[in-house]
């Protein structure tokens, strides 16, 4: 076989493999919509999204997922409020401040955190955080928004930290030298040169962290408490969307209305994470700096 023919064959082999993964993903999305969309024949989109009552097994059933959406958002939002400062500051410490040996230890600890199975974290939330919350604040249950948010934050920190770290590393050494040469201290350099230059990468990290948190299932299933109602305080239980799907899917008859409603929740979740990813992508392109500052 000629060298050229080999090159062509290799090219097509790679093409086929990449095609397979794209096609599989496409089929998953297709089946998600095929199973989920029929529910809108019985329930209007408005009633589904903004309906206040999620009673899928009542007679007649009611499929309003607004409490689930609120549950997902509030848990994600608080998780991000906790995880962003921790993740970004950790990244700054690792990439700019820490001495070599501490840097190595910290990095592997964060990687370890990323490798923890979510069920383990959920278990931790259930048997350690929940009883502590319940006793300390005298609550009816420790499985609530705060608990879920903290555990989700722990899950999102490695994502945010490692992507932010890459963004910080990508800031050219020349910027730092220029800043130091003008008599800036290390902290002035970090705050006024390095962070602004890495901002698009850090925003991407935050969006991806959010996408990770909102789609996370096991943790919210185990520690969010599972009450499908609009919460009134941070110590109330909620039922985020992924938890609802995971908890109920096993109980529903195949292609029943409830089954289709769960898939429709899947569609909503899919659209949300897709939006976060698109925003992350947009931010990282939009604020990309030109010239030698390109990240």
């Amino acid at each position, binding site marked *: 076989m000629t060298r050229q023919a080999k090159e062509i064959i290799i090219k097509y082999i790679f093409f086929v493999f990449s095609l397979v993964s794209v096609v599989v993903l496409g089929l998953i999305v297709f089946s998600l919509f095929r199973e989920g969309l029929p529910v809108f024949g019985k329930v209007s989109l408005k009633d589904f999204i903004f309906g206040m009552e999620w009673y899928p097994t009542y007679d007649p059933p009611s499929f309003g997922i607004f409490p689930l959406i609120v549950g997902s958002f509030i848990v994600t939002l608080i998780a991000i409020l906790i995880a962003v400062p921790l993740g970004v500051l950790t990244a700054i410490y690792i990439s700019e401040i820490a001495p*070599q040996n501490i840097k190595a230890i910290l990095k592997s600890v964060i990687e370890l955190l990323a490798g923890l199975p979510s069920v383990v974290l959920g278990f931790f939330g259930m048997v350690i955080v929940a009883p502590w919350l319940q006793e300390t604040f005298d609550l009816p249950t420790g499985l609530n928004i705060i608990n879920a948010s903290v555990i989700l934050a722990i899950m999102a920190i490695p994502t945010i930290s490692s992507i932010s770290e890459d963004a910080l590393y990508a800031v*050219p050494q*020349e*910027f*730092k*030298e*220029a*800043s*130091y*040469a*003008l*008599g*800036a*201290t290390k902290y*002035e350099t970090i705050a*006024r*040169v390095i962070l*602004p*230059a890495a901002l698009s990468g850090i925003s991407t990290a935050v969006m991806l962290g959010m996408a990770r948190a909102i789609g996370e299932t096991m943790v919210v299933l185990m520690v969010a408490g599972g009450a499908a109602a609009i919460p009134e305080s941070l110590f109330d239980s909620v039922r985020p969307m992924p938890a609802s799907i995971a908890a109920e899917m096993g109980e529903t008859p195949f292609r029943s209305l409830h089954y289709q409603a769960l898939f429709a929740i899947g569609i909503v979740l899919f659209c949300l994470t897709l939006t976060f990813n698109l925003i992350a992508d947009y931010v990282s392109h939009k604020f990309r*700096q*030109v*010239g*030698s*500052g390109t990240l």
Partner: protein
Amino acid sequence: MEFNIIKLNKVNFFYGQVRALTDISMKFEKNKVTALIGPSGCGKSTLLRLLNRMNDLIDGTRVEGEIIFENKNIYAPDVDPVEIRRKIGMVFQKPNPFPKTIYNNISYGPKLTGIGFEDRDALVERSLKQAVLWDEVKDILNKSAMNLSGGQQQRLCIARALAMKPDVLLMDEPTSALDPISTAKIEELIDELKKDYTIIIVTHNMQQAARISDETAFFYLGNMIEYNKTDKIFTNPDVKQTEDYITGRFG
């Protein structure tokens, strides 16, 4: 009147175990342009970066001897490198403006020292005029500095250093990344600036050293081989090695 602004006494410098500079003793004259020349790896850039403690940023380096500036050893334990860098400015080989607006590039340093806001516009204008960039950028001060050409960026970096009102300006091959026209502009600028500043410049370009400098020091393998008036170095050097290098027999 001759006056030495920086004085080196038996300076040795080490990267880890490797000695990069050996027993350098020399004096830099005020309001003169001093060129440091020599082949790659001879230690001339290292020496330049020693003068405003930029080598502090590299791990595992060590300095012996003293560098006297304003009657004080800048490597004395009680000296804050930040203070030194505010008085001894630096321009780098590759133009490195911040990804900020032109205005904010210039005002970056003064903001750190807390110069009042009302003075700042005037300072930006004065610095850009000194760097002969004002006419080209006065209408685009709020545009990103990244849109400027390489030569303009380098003059911006010079203006940025001048905004700190330093006593000494260190230049590390400031024209090596630029085209001949931009290079000529920077050289003119250097000639203009020496009225007010002491300039120490590292260059690989022998003609450039001959054109712009008053004094020239030739370095080789971490040693200072010869240091004299530029005319003398380029017409009748005392040391054979200097002559060989200048005439292009090695380097």
